[in-house]
């Protein structure tokens, strides 16, 4: 086993999945937003909701397409770089991911086609139903992914036979508390991503004094939703912290940069964990708060990193920092959402250009928070790939060499940088242009199998199926 190849494989997995997660995080919430828009359109009969629906459907198309393209890679990387993991956990992770693929295809692909073509061909209520099914599809996709990842965090419902994880209780694997809490946490994160993108778009138009009707609706919907969701998200974040505290104490200690057992424990607000000296540089620490955060108690004893053997400890610096970045983004979002909502209620939001600018610039926050949260969870799980059972070093393809891993990592980086910059540029152009354009003029070439074509300015070709031959 080659240590550099291991590091490169981890970076490659982290890199490809980080690129991937951005798009699902966006589309899960966007699908729900589309459903709400369509429902409002049906309920109120106002044209502006349909305009918004058509507009966001185009953006959904590109983001969904990029999510699909980058997702294909994930299904194969377990086998290429982590052959020992896929051999051992295949009987559990394989079926979970196969359900992800199957349910997502079933719901997303077929009902997305109806969204694209069906406006005039199906009854309005069925059209709304199709939007809801696409939203359900993206949600279920996230559900299976979270079940799969939660099993790697807290493996349950299995026995080991001949070096293979054999499932013996699927209900426990699927419906355990850890998985449910983390699923909710991820789902809310996805809703926040969409809420902030929608609100930022509204703020952008309001600053440019265009599409004011649409801008008001987007600002209101995005900020109100965020104003409610951010506090709920903080509660779920706390619940996720509880599972870490209970099941992964060493990860918890790393996140808190707590090197030694403390009673009552302090909370390191900021600092620079130094693994060489097993202490924190530039530390600012609040006494007792650590016990309150961890155990809701003023006196509890909290365990420190040095209580665990060095080979079982995760890296400290990354989880410590990424966790703080995540919480920091969350608090910023809370402030923006509440101030913005208050201004909307007072009808003064359009008078404050600084606030609109801040909202416009805030759209990366939920994505940064999502990625930072995932880094906390995944890096904090080290040195295990299946927590407590299988070490990451033992999970790698044994014969993988540094040069092979480096080559593929460079290729992935080059290709992704290339295509995703084009993709994001096209989303940017669509957003800048705004919902004006031609309403409900779906290009003839747009097809359910080809979601991105929905946003074509000019379609590949218009084709009319003729009688055969």
């Amino acid at each position, binding site marked *: 086993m080659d240590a550099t190849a291991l590091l490169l494989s981890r970076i490659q997995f982290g890199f490809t999945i980080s690129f991937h997660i951005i798009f699902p995080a966006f589309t899960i919430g966007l699908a729900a937003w589309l459903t709400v828009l369509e429902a409002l359109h049906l309920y109120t009969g106002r044209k502006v909701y349909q305009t918004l629906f058509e507009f966001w459907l185009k953006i959904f198309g590109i983001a969904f*397409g990029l999510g*699909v*393209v980058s997702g*294909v*890679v994930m299904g*194969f990387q*377990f*086998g*290429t*770089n982590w*052959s020992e993991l*896929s*051999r051992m956990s*295949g*009987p*559990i*992770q*394989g*079926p979970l*991911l*196969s*359900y*992800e*693929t*199957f349910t997502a*295809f*079933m719901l997303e*692909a*077929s009902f997305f086609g109806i969204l694209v073509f069906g406006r005039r061909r199906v009854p309005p209520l069925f059209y709304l139903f199709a939007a809801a099914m696409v939203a359900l599809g993206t949600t279920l996709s996230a559900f299976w992914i979270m079940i799969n990842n939660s099993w790697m965090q807290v493996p349950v419902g299995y026995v080991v*036979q001949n070096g*293979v994880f*054999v*499932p013996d209780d*699927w209900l426990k694997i699927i419906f355990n508390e850890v998985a449910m809490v983390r699923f909710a946490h991820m789902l809310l994160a996805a809703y926040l991503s969409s809420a902030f993108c929608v609100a930022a778009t509204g703020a952008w138009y309001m600053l440019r004094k265009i599409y004011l009707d649409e801008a008001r609706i987007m600002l209101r919907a995005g900020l109100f939703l965020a104003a409610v969701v951010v506090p709920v998200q903080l509660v779920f974040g706390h619940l996720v912290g509880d599972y870490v505290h209970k099941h992964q104490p060493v990860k918890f200690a790393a996140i808190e940069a707590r090197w030694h057992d403390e009673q009552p424990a302090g909370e390191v607000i900021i600092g620079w964990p130094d693994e060489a000296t097993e202490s924190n540089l530039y530390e600012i620490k609040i006494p007792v708060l650590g016990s309150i955060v961890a155990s809701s108690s003023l006196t509890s004893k909290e365990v420190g990193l040095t209580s665990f053997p060095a080979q079982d400890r995760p890296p400290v610096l990354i989880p410590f920092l990424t966790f703080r970045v995540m919480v920091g983004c969350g608090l910023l979002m809370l402030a923006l959402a509440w101030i913005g909502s208050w201004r909307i209620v007072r009808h003064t939001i359009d008078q404050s250009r600084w606030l609109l600018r801040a909202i416009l610039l805030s759209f990366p926050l939920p994505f940064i928070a999502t990625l930072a949260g995932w880094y906390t969870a995944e890096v904090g799980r080290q040195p295990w790939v299946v927590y407590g059972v299988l070490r990451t070093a033992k999970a790698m393809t044994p*014969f993988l*060499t540094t040069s*092979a891993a480096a080559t*593929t990592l460079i*290729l*992935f980086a080059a*290709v992704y940088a290339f*295509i995703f910059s084009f*993709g994001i540029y096209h989303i940017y152009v669509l957003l800048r242009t705004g919902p004006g354009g031609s309403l409900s003029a779906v290009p003839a*070439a747009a*097809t359910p*199998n*080809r*979601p*991105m*074509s929905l946003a*074509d*300015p*000019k*379609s*590949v*070709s*218009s*084709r*009319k199926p003729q009688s055969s*031959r």
Partner: protein
Amino acid sequence: MVTFWVTLLAVSILIYLLLDGFDLGVGILFLLPNSEPRRLAMLGAVAPFWDGNETWLVVTGVILWGAFPIVYATVLSAFYIPVILMLLGLILRGVAFEFRNRSDQTRWIWTCSFGLGSLLASFMQGVMVGGLVQGLPVVDGRYAGGIFGWLSTFPLLCGVGLCLGYSLLGACWLVRKRGGAVRDIARRQLKFLAIGVFIFLVLVFLHALLNHLPILHRWIDRPYLFVFPAISAVAACVLASSILKQNDYLPFLMVSLIFASAFGTLAVSFWPYMVPFAITIDEAASPHASLAFMFWGEGLFIFPLLLVYVATGFRVFRGKFVASRGHY
């Protein structure tokens, strides 16, 4: 249960071969010099299908991991470089469909990306099939050949062969789906490609004979295997006559039939091995609890739905596509 999943796996692979085969093939033909309107007509002929076609690769991948994890782990890691190059090729060609229409100055980039991506993905798939047929070095149920253990003449030959085969399938698809100049050019290519594939098959056979590939013994043990080449021979005759008669409809069916029988040949000569002469189906299969869990949901209900979905998609877009004037 094991039989059920091995059948579903085989069906998924075959669907993938035929469906993504023609659109990868059109991608390879895209590299030949051509005019812009014809290029657009070629893209248009596969645009509604390619994404759905590629999903079958993912379906194949997850069935393999869930139902036969040992094969998934062994094959994907053994073919580390080919698998990743294939994935990158698929990404490059996939996004080209979308980005090509949005770009004017950078269009040539996406033309190359579509053509070369398709070529790369097809070649790597051929290499993997060839590597499997030749046999992977497996010790104690684990691949033991290193990063380049698959690299030798035969797999590379198969890579070229699959590119030719996919191009042939792609040309048949264009003949079937398009009219005018695009069809006429494809008809001409069809002849050369068909002859090319035939020469390739002869080469492969000779190579297998000369190198005493163990898979050849299967033909002696299992004479009923000759049914497949017989089907292919009949299909090849019909193909030749339909090319001469300028029939637009039959060539695609016949080439599909040849592909299907080639796949059948391999599947039956591998049986009961999944990785030839190293890992059998039963050794590779997941525990019953995993197979049953997959069966009662996705196997019994969702898989048939996917088949219906594909059939519907092809029905909606059946017949020849006609490009409307000035829409490019």
